């Protein structure tokens, strides 16, 4: 019985690895996805109609700061989050 449980578990792990490899493009990508991406990916709880959260941001000059809220009010604000890589 234990032997079959082990076989089934191994097959499930293999299927998961293969599935992640397809999504990430390679076995190495699957590792990167699990190790580095998934811990930082969150669906979040914000919904349309919620008050937009505020946060302090640093400007490109590296010294001055502003708040997201400072950029809202007169017109809608499109916010794009991202990085270089």
């Amino acid at each position: 019985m234990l032997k079959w449980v082990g076989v089934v578990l191994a097959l499930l792990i293999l299927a998961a690895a293969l599935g992640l490899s397809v999504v990430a493009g390679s076995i190495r990508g699957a590792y990167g996805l699990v190790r580095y991406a998934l811990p930082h990916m969150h669906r979040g709880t914000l919904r349309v109609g919620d008050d937009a959260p505020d946060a302090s941001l640093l400007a490109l000059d590296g010294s001055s700061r502003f708040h997201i809220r400072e950029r809202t009010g007169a017109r809608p604000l499109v916010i794009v989050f991202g990085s270089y890589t």
Partner: protein
Amino acid sequence: MVQIYKDYKDHTEFLTVYVREAHPTDEWQMNSNVKEDVCYAQPKTLEQRVAIANDFVKRFNYPTQFGIDDMSNAANDAYAAWPERIYIIDERGRIAYRGGMGPFNYHPEEARAWLAARYGEVKREASTVGPDKTGAKREK
């Protein structure tokens, strides 16, 4: 996103927020970044974030207002932003559009549709800004 910015900047504010790197050299580096010479380690200091953000803006002559998230990742956490995400906040300070989590559900065309529904279809001359990591090359 650059093309959307060009099309709707007369109606709407745009703000790009730099958050932690998605594919740094010391984590999950992508071959495409090596080919494009976009190779950075994950910043450990705010100064390093500022330097990378400036490299990005200079390389692509990126036109929108730009802010950099703190090392505490406060903005990222508040908006569940990583690795990339789009929101639209209306004049009352409320979420009017909440984009999906990138990269698989990152769809700038949805933000464009929201803007088009409000201000009408706008399509100016195509952007001459190069491909970027905030959606320009994915825009349909």
